């Protein structure tokens, strides 16, 4: 038993290390990382085959690979906030809409944003463990909220979309609402066409040739970086001390993020992006600091609860869970006691979250200290090039065209001063239409 725990710990640390590294690379989604790890899993299993000689069963080796993938996914949700904060900031004077983390960076508070995001992510894990049993009985039997929510799913999604659009406001009256509606529909039509298009990877990596990668990179990643390059912002010296923030507000942000992250982890066709939007609407006008905490907690809570969901309804809701289900036998969590595999995986989550928390803060400080020495525009150009090459490698020429169109759509939001979350129509509209059976 002790040897098994030691191996779980070791593989959780390995996965965490990998997750931190992939999190630091901008534009690489956790799901892609999980699928890369899954494609490498036969090599891992073969590589760790020597453990059989020490009495470790082949099934347990598969579980260890699953532990590594899950730890990687959790660590990725912590570390991916670092490039999100430090890269792609636009010029404060010219940008019509600016992300809260970038706003903090332009105030010299990039490190503070990193710490807040780590607090939000780790807080989501703590709340995740605290909400584990209530979640089990509310979402599963006897309350079966999952079934109730699913029956109303199409109305919930329409409600979310309407809420997103109608909460746009500006001094010109309804202009923003009209632009937001146009952007939502345009993204939706784009999603309808592109998400079902067959993409082929020139490298032959079929598992990664999903249209989601160029679509989301174009809608949310590249526009920020392009605007940053074109506006050449002056990034001030970054401070490494923290301002005092309200514990009550922070707890409320984590709780709201965790609750929405958990619900989004359960529903089909819904990602943490929609959870973020809903949570942001619930926590609006709370300042940049609280928005950063909320964003991080939604992401990490989503990664945590897709694991629990997996053992409740036996369906994967993320790339990491698709990878895990290929490796370990499934046993439903029907009673009060959890299946043993879930206990092992939760242990890995805890280890990964704790290590990632300190690693993110440490890396955030190093980034903040070294930041002024890095040529910001050149760095952004390098990342843009890297993302374009990656999109081509995974999805070919059709993926490149999808990336180009998505980038144009993604530029509409900052150029017309509306929230870029309307671009989530790319996922929402196709799901709504298909749920309505049109």
């Amino acid at each position, binding site marked *: 038993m002790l040897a098994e725990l030691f191996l779980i710990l070791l593989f959780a640390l390995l996965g965490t290390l990998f997750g931190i590294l992939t999190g630091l690379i901008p534009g690489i989604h956790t799901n892609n990382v999980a699928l890369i790890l899954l494609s490498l899993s036969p090599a891992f299993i073969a590589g760790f085959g020597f453990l059989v000689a020490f009495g470790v069963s082949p099934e347990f080796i598969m579980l260890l690979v699953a532990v590594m993938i899950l730890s990687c996914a959790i660590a990725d949700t912590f570390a991916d906030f670092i490039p999100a904060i430090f890269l792609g900031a636009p010029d404060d004077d010219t940008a019509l809409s600016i992300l809260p983390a970038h706003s903090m960076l332009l105030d010299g508070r990039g490190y503070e944003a990193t710490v807040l995001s780590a607090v939000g992510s780790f807080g989501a894990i703590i709340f995740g463990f605290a909400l584990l049993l209530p979640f089990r009985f509310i979402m599963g039997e006897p309350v079966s909220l999952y079934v109730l929510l699913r029956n109303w799913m199409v109305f919930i999604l329409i409600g979310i979309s309407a809420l997103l659009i109608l909460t746009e406001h500006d001094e010109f009256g309804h202009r923003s609402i009209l632009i937001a509606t146009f952007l939502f529909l345009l993204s939706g039509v784009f999603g309808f066409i592109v998400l079902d298009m067959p993409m082929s990877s020139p490298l032959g990596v*079929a598992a990664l040739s*999903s249209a989601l990668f160029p679509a989301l990179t174009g809608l949310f990643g590249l526009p920020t970086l392009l605007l940053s390059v074109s506006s050449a912002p002056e990034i001030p010296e970054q401070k490494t001390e923290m301002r005092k923030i309200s514990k009550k507000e922070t707890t409320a942000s984590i709780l709201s993020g965790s609750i929405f992250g958990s619900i989004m982890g359960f529903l089909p066709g819904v990602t943490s992006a929609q959870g973020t939007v809903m949570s942001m609407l619930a926590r609006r006008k709370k300042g940049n600091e609280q928005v950063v905490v909320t964003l991080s907690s939604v992401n990490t809570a989503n990664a945590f609860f897709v694991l629990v969901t997996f053992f409740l309804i036996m369906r994967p809701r993320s790339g990491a869970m698709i990878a895990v289900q290929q490796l370990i036998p499934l046993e439903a969590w029907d009673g009060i006691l959890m299946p043993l595999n879930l206990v092992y995986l939760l242990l890995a989550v805890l280890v990964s979250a704790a290590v990632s928390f300190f690693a993110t803060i440490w890396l955030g400080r190093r980034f903040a200290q070294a930041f002024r020495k890095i040529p910001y525009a050149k760095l952004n150009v390098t990342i843009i090039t890297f993302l374009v090459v990656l999109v081509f490698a995974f999805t070919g020429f059709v993926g490149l065209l999808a990336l180009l*169109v998505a980038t144009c759509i993604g530029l509409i939001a900052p150029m017309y001063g509306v929230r870029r979350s309307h671009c989530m129509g790319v996922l929402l509209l196709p799901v709504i239409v298909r749920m309505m*059976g049109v």
Partner: protein
Amino acid sequence: MNFRGFVVLFSVLGICALYGISMLSQPADVQIGKIGGYEGMYVKARGTITDLQIMKYGSASMKLRNNTSYIQIFVESYSGNLSAGDEVEVSGRVEQYRGEYEIAVLNDRAVKMLKKWDEEILFVSQLAQDPEKYRGTNVKVTGKVGEVYTKIFYLGDESRGYALRVNSSSTSGLTKGKNVMVSGTFVFDSENLRYQLDIQSFEDANYAR
């Protein structure tokens, strides 16, 4: 035109271009046996439903058969409008589930009914000639009643001499030689190595004089 206008124009033109490409490249119909090449894509496949199972939390799992090929279908939100034996067109995304390919669909509205199983009336001889085609599906069979027991009777085909064993909760009202029409599930009894018809309930069975 300023840059903002260009961005909007190019977005619309780009979507039109992508639509054109999707029309050329998207598989309209996919052969069940070749589904593996479409992983992650949204496809349409046609076939007959077999082995329909309602799962926990209102999902359903079934197999779709076309000739000798099978594919697993997972319906996320199932409202109970389908039956084994229905000929359908399924629209969904190809995924891998525990190492096997399956088509995952959001709900049973993504399953288009082509022919309901009870629209076709079969003779016993048709079942006998290709039993695997109907295995695990609901069928409506007409024939002449043979030997009658308490909970079993045989449905025959006079010209060819076939006799299909039919399991029923009651056989009252049935007499040898009567022409009847029976609805039920055509299954294979692996213990006795024979095909048989299970009437789901006596009331559901449709006896026609």
